[in-house]
């Protein structure tokens, strides 16, 4: 759920509760105020009636309410002494409404000198509570809706605007790659929290970039620095081999040379990977992979022959792509080499080329390789001790550099598929 909707949800929930409570309190208070006001009116009226009774005794005989709103009834003085002034809510038939409606009734008693005591009842029509509640309810519902709509509008317009830098930041972060040289610029904002966030992220990225670059630099430098001692060692051993040696000594020296060469290859592959990742191969030309593959097929002819592997190339289209020529060569060589090395004597390799994909399918081990790890660095199955374990990592790095997808599948044959 979006942050906007979260606030909306909580706001509408709490507003509902607040408004309901407020409505209850408001209703009670208002009713109290209305009663108070009516009671004041009744009190005033009472005084007027009693004053009038002093001067005009005719009203003392007005036993029923009729058209007016008071009634007087003589009572014994003892009873009058017991009557307390009371205000009560009661119902009375209203002609206009043709229904019993609530009225406020004041019951009191007064005594006139020499004329005995009387009970006085005064009524005042009152607010219809059910109507009031209904009106209040609708008013509040409208208020609630109005508030929610306002909140939605405010949320969407203002908050969205306020959160804009945040979404921009997320967007930028999503597209950010350590590998890309693109400089990360945080979106501008006036909000302190976002500024803080931007600064924190910038600092974090800066640290990461520095670590990444220094690591890259380290690998590159280390690989370079290794070249010279490797050269010296290999050459010294080569010279040593030309001196009179016993056969087992010569064998040992040759073994050391072989391992130094393995180290050299490893070193070169690491350098190559670093360079690909550093995008140091800038030259690009349209490369026809069909031609490249048939050229490589020829280059590998003797090795294929020797291993008795049959290689078939089927072209159902021309696969061309803007590519660095050396890397294109490397890509095809590595895939072909992979298909040969992991093959068995008398096996086969099928290369299928269409306009959008090239697949290398080869016979080999009976089991599928680990799809997730096969393109990783230093992935090796136990059979191949002397390989660098970087060949397919290089394939992947090259493919990614030129926006190709590379994929492994197994269905008895091992398929390596390159897709546009």
């Amino acid at each position, binding site marked *: 759920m979006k942050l906007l909707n979260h606030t909306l949800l909580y706001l509408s929930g709490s507003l509902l509760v607040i408004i309901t409570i407020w409505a209850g309190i408001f209703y009670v208070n208002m009713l109290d105020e209305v009663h108070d006001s009516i009671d004041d009116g009744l009190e005033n009226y009472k005084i007027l009636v009693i004053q009038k009774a002093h001067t005009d005794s005719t009203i003392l005989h007005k036993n029923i309410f009729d058209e007016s709103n008071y009634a007087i009834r003589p009572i014994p003085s003892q009873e009058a002494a017991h009557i307390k002034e009371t205000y009560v809510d009661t119902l009375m038939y209203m002609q206009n409404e043709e229904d019993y409606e609530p009225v406020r009734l004041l019951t009191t008693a007064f005594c006139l000198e020499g004329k005995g005591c009387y009970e006085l009842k005064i009524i005042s029509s009152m607010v219809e509570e059910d109507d009031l509640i209904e009106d209040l309810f609708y008013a509040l519902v409208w208020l609630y809706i109005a508030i929610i709509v306002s909140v939605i509008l405010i949320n969407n317009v203002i908050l969205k605007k306020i959160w804009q830098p945040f979404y921009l930041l997320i967007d930028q972060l999503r597209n950010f790659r350590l590998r890309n040289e693109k400089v990360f610029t945080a979106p501008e904002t006036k909000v302190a929290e976002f500024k803080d966030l931007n600064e924190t992220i910038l600092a974090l990225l800066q640290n990461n970039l520095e670590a990444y670059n220094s690591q890259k630099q380290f690998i590159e430098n280390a690989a370079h620095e290794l070249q010279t001692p490797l050269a*010296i060692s290999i050459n010294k051993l080569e010279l040593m081999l030309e001196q009179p040696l016993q056969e087992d000594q010569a064998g040992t020296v040759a073994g050391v040379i072989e391992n130094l060469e393995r180290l050299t290859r490893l070193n070169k592959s690491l350098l190559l990977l670093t360079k690909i990742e550093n995008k140091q191969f800038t030259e690009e030309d349209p490369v026809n992979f069909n031609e490249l593959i048939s050229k490589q097929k020829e280059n590998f002819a003797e090795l294929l022959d020797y291993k008795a592997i049959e290689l078939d190339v089927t072209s159902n289209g021309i696969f061309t792509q803007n590519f660095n020529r050396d890397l294109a060569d490397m890509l095809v060589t590595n895939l072909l080499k992979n298909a040969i090395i992991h093959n068995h004597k008398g096996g086969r390799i099928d290369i299928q080329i269409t306009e959008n994909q090239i697949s290398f399918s080869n016979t080999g081990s009976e089991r599928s390789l680990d799809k997730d790890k096969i393109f990783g660095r230093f992935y090796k199955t136990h059979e191949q001790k002397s390989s660098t374990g970087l060949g397919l990592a290089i394939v992947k790095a090259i493919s990614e550099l030129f926006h190709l997808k590379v994929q492994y599948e197994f269905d008895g044959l091992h398929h390596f598929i390159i897709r546009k």
Partner: protein
Amino acid sequence: MKILIIEDEPDLLDNMVQSLQKEKFLVETADTFLSAMDKISMYDYSCILLDINLPGGSGMDVLQEIKKLKKTDGVIIISAKDSLDDKLTGLTFGADDYLTKPFHLAELNARINAVLRRKTFDGQNTVSLKNLDINYDNRTVEIDGVPLILNRKEYDTLIYFISNKNRLITKTALAEHVWGDQTDEADNLDFIYSQIKNLRKKLKESNAEIEIQAVYGIGYKLLTGD
């Protein structure tokens, strides 16, 4: 023939000197930028091996100086950087070849030979060795005047051996030179063996006066009988 090695790493320099002296070259050395500049202005060399990273300056500047002096010395750049840019810059500035460290001494011989061939035999690029006549332009070999049919790789192998005659060539050095990136797995060394076997057979059948000899099972040597 005189060769100048410009290299600041004493061990590497020593290795190259030893190896090239075996090839009967006159070898001179320079281990700093200044001494290199001195030597190239004072003497002429058949071939100059040039390291890019030198104390006191860049090998590229030495190269430019060589070209400015209108010298015809062959130049092979030797660099620890397997960098395409350096290679391109070097070759544009007129270097004849580019070799990345580490390299096999046999490979160095082959490269020097190729450069010397291009420099020396203007026009007629052929060489005779015993009863073999090799035409580098046409990539053909004749034994006693009879063409020897070799495939591309066999020809490359033979030329590599001829550049390193009477020297030991390890299987891996040969594999790297002839088959390049394709063979970097130990089990493929058997493949080299089978390829050499074919070549030896062809040479023998044509009564070549040279012979490829296996040495301890680690490499080969081209024997010319000298």
